[in-house]
């Protein structure tokens, strides 16, 4: 580990990608993630790597498809409306089993929405977004250091499973500054990719493809993908569980988890037994965290910067064994510590039905 640097989230992802051996990054401007493209526009050429601003998000994700298919560690980034445009390419990438990293610094939606932070792309990120049965590995980091660490891990898991990985941040995370440490430049060994289309010297033809017109063939391909997703769900779940013996649990990820933790501390300070479940992988969703506390948990309060998306996964994980409540703000409003605290106290006092 090197020295501490004070970094904006967007810049930190850029530097972390470079340290992770990202060989090609394809940009398209959209607020609030422009610092990432601007950072890499300076840094990638310094490292003799590829930086290219595409003509659209659609082109950028397809450039990632080409570069990833040619064996390079490749990345693109955008914010909500731009990620919608990338969905076609993401579906193809998932189907062709190409490793890559996609960053979404979520902003308020739907439509053009706002440029302020939001978490309303959770469904899109974790339930598909594009067409067909596929899954992305989705990370929901909540500090800049975690952004750095998960960016490295994202490239690693992408290669390990030949699957796209999404870093689901939000505008606030992209813009805020925190001190971070980066891994050293030469720490990464890039894996061999015998399947990549690099020219067929010394071997038979390689093909990157997602077309399987024969129903039986496509059925087999899907079964193979599902088997891979099950393996990921078994091996790659990550979460943080604070105060496992609590009676009440806040559930939040990303920026919201930071505020929820403060609300938890406030409630604890007043003698309430409150814990926090913070999913780090949003897909696979950490059902295991809930299993650990379901025997004694009296209620859950999910907090999101959305109208209620992750709460559906919380309900599936809790499976009716305790009430699951929701508190959310949309449009770019970050729920305050006080708001979350009050919502929590209402539940503890039994003032609100499940």
């Amino acid at each position, binding site marked *: 580990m090197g020295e*501490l*640097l*004070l*970094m*904006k989230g967007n*810049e930190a992802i850029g*530097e972390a990608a470079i340290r992770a051996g990202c060989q090609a990054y394809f940009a398209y401007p959209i*607020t*609030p993630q422009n*610092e990432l493209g*601007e950072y890499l526009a*300076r840094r990638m050429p310094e490292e003799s790597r590829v930086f290219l601003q595409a003509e659209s998000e659609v082109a950028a994700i397809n450039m990632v498809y080409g570069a990833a298919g040619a064996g390079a560690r490749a990345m693109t980034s955008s914010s909500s409306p731009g990620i919608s445009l990338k969905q076609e390419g993401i579906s193809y990438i998932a189907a062709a089993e190409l490793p890559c990293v996609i960053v979404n610094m979520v902003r308020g939606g739907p439509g053009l929405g*706002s*440029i*302020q*932070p939001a978490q309303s792309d959770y469904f899109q990120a974790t339930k598909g977004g594009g067409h067909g049965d596929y899954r992305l590995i989705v990370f929901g980091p909540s500090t800049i250091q975690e952004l750095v660490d998960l960016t490295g891990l994202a490239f690693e898991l992408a290669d390990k499973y030949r699957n796209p990985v999404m870093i689901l941040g939000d*505008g*606030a995370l992209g*813009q*805020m*500054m*925190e*001190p971070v440490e980066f891994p050293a430049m030469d720490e990464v060994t890039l894996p061999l990719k015998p399947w990549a289309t690099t020219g067929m010297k010394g071997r038979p033809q390689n093909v990157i493809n997602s077309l399987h017109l024969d129903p039986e063939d496509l059925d087999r391909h899907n079964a193979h993908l599902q088997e891979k997703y099950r393996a990921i769900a078994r091996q790659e779940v990550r979460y943080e569980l604070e105060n496992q013996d609590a009676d009440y649990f806040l559930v939040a990820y990303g*920026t*919201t988890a*930071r*505020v929820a933790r403060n609300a938890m501390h406030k409630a604890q300070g007043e003698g309430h037994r409150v814990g926090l479940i913070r999913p780090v992988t949003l897909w696979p969703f950490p059902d295991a965290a809930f299993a650990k506390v379901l025997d004694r948990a009296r209620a859950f309060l999910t907090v999101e910067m959305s109208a209620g998306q992750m709460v559906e996964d919380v309900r599936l994980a809790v499976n009716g064994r305790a009430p699951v409540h929701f508190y959310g703000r949309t449009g*770019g409003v*970050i729920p305050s510590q006080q708001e979350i605290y009050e919502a929590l106290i209402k539940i503890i006092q039994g003032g609100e039905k499940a």
Partner: protein
Amino acid sequence: MTILVGAFGSGKTEIALNLALRMAAEGNVSLVDLDVVTPYFRSRDQKEALARHGVRVITPEPRVAQADLPSIPSGMEKVLGSEEGKVIIDVGGDTMGARVLGSLRRLLPRRHSLLFVVNPFRPFTATVEKTVTELRRIEDTVHLRVTGLIANSNLGPRTTWETLLTGHEKVLAAGRQLKLPVIFGTYPCFLNGNGVRSNLDLPLMPLQLFMFPP
């Protein structure tokens, strides 16, 4: 008139807000938010708090204040040409933010301080060499000469006196190389001022922090 420029995230806005509050105690002061590049954490977000302390905050019109449009506040000619009171201009980061100053430079009074805010814990000003390069890039963009440096060494909440003073020394070294004075250094309020063991030849200003991550 004090104009603050610097790399992205060097701390221009925090310093601008602190300077404005100090000057407001002494008389008429205007803070111009000329940040056309940063979408979050801008002076305009603190407009009401500052107004309570008598600081006039000049920002783009409310309709576009939450947009990512490069909107310049209206009436800049009047503000910049005014003989009355003090004016602090908070310019956006890097050459991208500084461009707007280049576009307005014919309106600036001849007598002004153009101060380059440096945090040596930020990536593009992490060494003396990088700091010099960054400063020259910004000077080239605004077509003006920087008149002094501000040492704003910090690692956010992990700032200690030790890290801070190491950083300030780097800024002083950059100043020597650039033949520019370092006007002052900062330290965050949460570091108790009594604990300072500074041998540096540098006045230190406590910074009250306004911009907190969620």
